[in-house]
């Protein structure tokens, strides 16, 4: 038991020391930071709130706007992701899907038509409509004949496989896409992209979690005449609260901290906090003292949520992620 505590405190030290260093650095003057390592305020150096003053007052608007952006984009995208993701996860757990291979091939053919049209300089909207029309045509005629189909597990794996795309590979087309819609540098562009990027994680975590909810409750509600939507809203969702909360926190952390996509899609209006942190790397080298303040004000709300929701996280993952 003594050994356990020694090990636990050792790792707690490894985790907390960098955070402590952030805290003391945020109280140092640039001179103190550069003069060498000073560990303990008041004994080694005279702490002051200059950096905090700079971030909150001098930068003022340039701190609060990204902060607001981060809060709005993070919370909205996470809420939408968790809603859509748990609906899809519920479908994957309780319904049986069979997508005919013919339909998938038809879709691929539709995409191919659109791509070919675009190569021949057709306006993208027209090409997309033509591709869609071709797909619907195939769907109504040829695609129904095939027997082979993909099932729920294949759909789930397809969704997960979307996480394998490195962001640098997809971010340029997404940039062009939002440029065409003139949505660059808006909340909307970031929210839509984050929803798409994080949906697979939600589907995956919630699928395992929803599987553990007893089927009997849903069945008896259905027998009493409740529609599938009613069952989902009044029975499944309330029972899934721990799993929902755990997933919400995970996805919020990802959206809150995302850097690369935000770098491409925003400039000044919709800029989020990770960009503000990186922007403190000035020509004279990184201004660690300002970064420390920013990182600290950035993680505070997330930590507060984590502490408040800690018992949910444990219970949520308890059943959720375990089944694989």
């Amino acid at each position, binding site marked *: *038991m003594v050994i*356990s505590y020694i*090990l*636990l405190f050792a*790792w707690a030290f*490894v*985790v*907390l020391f*960098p955070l402590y260093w*952030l805290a003391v*650095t945020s109280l140092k003057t640039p001179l103190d*930071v550069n003069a*060498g*390592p000073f560990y303990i305020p008041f004994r080694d150096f005279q702490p002051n709130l200059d950096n905090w003053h700079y971030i909150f007052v001098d930068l003022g608007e340039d701190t609060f706007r990204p902060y607001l952006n981060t809060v709005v984009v993070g919370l909205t995208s996470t809420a939408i992701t968790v809603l*859509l*993701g748990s*609906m899809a996860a519920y*479908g994957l757990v309780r*319904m049986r899907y069979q997508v005919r291979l013919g339909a998938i091939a038809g879709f691929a053919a539709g*995409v191919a038509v659109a791509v070919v049209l675009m190569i021949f300089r057709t306006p993208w909207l027209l090409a997309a409509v033509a591709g869609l029309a071709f797909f619907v045509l195939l769907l109504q005629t040829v695609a129904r004949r095939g027997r082979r189909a993909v099932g729920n597990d294949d*759909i789930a794996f397809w*969704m997960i496989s*979307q996480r*394998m795309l*490195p962001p*640098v*590979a997809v*971010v*340029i*087309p997404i940039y*062009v*896409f939002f440029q065409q819609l003139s949505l660059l540098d808006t909340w909307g562009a970031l929210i839509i992209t984050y929803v*798409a990027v994080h*949906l*697979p994680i939600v*589907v995956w975590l919630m699928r395992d979690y929803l599987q553990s909810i007893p089927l009997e409750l849903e069945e008896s509600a259905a027998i009493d005449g409740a*529609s*599938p*939507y009613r069952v989902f809203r009044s029975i499944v969702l309330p029972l899934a609260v721990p799993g929902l909360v755990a997933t919400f926190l995970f996805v919020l952390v990802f959206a809150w*901290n995302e*850097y690369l996509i935000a770098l491409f899609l925003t400039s000044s209006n919709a800029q989020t906090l*990770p960009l503000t*942190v*990186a922007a403190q*790397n000035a020509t004279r080298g*990184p201004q*660690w003292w300002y970064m420390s303040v920013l*990182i600290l004000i*950035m*993680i505070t709300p*997330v*930590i507060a949520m984590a502490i408040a929701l*800690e018992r949910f*996280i*444990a219970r949520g*993952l*308890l059943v959720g*992620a*375990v089944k*694989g």
Partner: protein
Amino acid sequence: MSSQTSERVLRAATSRWRPIGARLDRSAGSVFILPAVLVILGFSIFPLLASLYVSLSRLSFSEGGVDLKFVGLDNYAKLIVGVDQTHFLGVVGPITPVSIAVLAAAYGLLALLLYRYITGPNRTAGGLVGRVVTVVIAGALLWLIANTILTSGRPGTLVVTIVYVGVDVAVQYLLGLGLALLVVQHLPGRRFFRVVFLLPMMITPVGVAYLFQMLTDTSKGPLYPLWARFGLTDVSWVTNPWGARLAVMIGDVWQWTPFIFIILLAAIETLPHELVEAAVVDGASRWNVFWRITFPQILPATTTVVLIRLIEGFKIIDLPNVLTNGGPGTATESLTLHAYTIWRALDIGGSAAVAYMLLLLVTFVSVTYVNLFRRRVAALT
């Protein structure tokens, strides 16, 4: 107006509405899954095709717009046999006894696995082809790793990324598992540890990168006394390739061990106590209890969380970019950073080609991993 009339009116109304409601109910399956499928489809198919096309062309900025010229596989050829070969694949050094020994052992293992499958009872033609392809690709990657790392050669971004992912995921898993086993004991204060151990995950990766830049600074970082003791204050140890890589890996381990920790903790806490208690009563050692009872039961969670970390780990960029700027030279560059630096040099096509090579690598590793471990574990449980 009698109640009869209103009842009739009501019935007429419901009968008109019922078909729509019933129809909606019948298509509930589609309604549940379609929004997610459409969003994912929209954001995967189009970018995937677009960057595939870009990777096959040369993009140049001309007056008033961009000019896209189809160049076939040129961008890929540049990486594998052309000017960017040393950057991407590295420099192969002359063979050494160590590299030969390691390669021989690895190839022997691959051959043994293939032989066991061929002589095994349930082989199929498709399975055989898949395994031969896997063995060939794995053999090529191993050859590249052994001949760039274990010799006087220089590993390229491909090998560096594989090293990052391999070392990081292994260390993160061992640490995460150890911490989960420690916290799961009913010690007072475990809620404190549970929250504290999660903290690194919540910091933005860019922030973690700058934080580690601050911590590893040899002249004004907090570890200065340590460097001073070993006389390392003047040599910026980030100029040493393996020192720099180690710094990147330490940062990654620090940030992502919590992820594995929390999921394994949840997995262990759900296990029924009876088995463990019975084993303890029978006098089993703690090591035996863990190895024979706990570990097999958390295998499913293990394989899931390792797969997530594998996929995410391959995308590492912030730490090498900020901490070492990919240097010294290109020693710490990961594939994502490689794609990013080429992109900044406005070679968009080459950047997309690197990103596609990364996609192929991740797909290969994930599919092999799933076939090798996850299916087998799923069959066990």
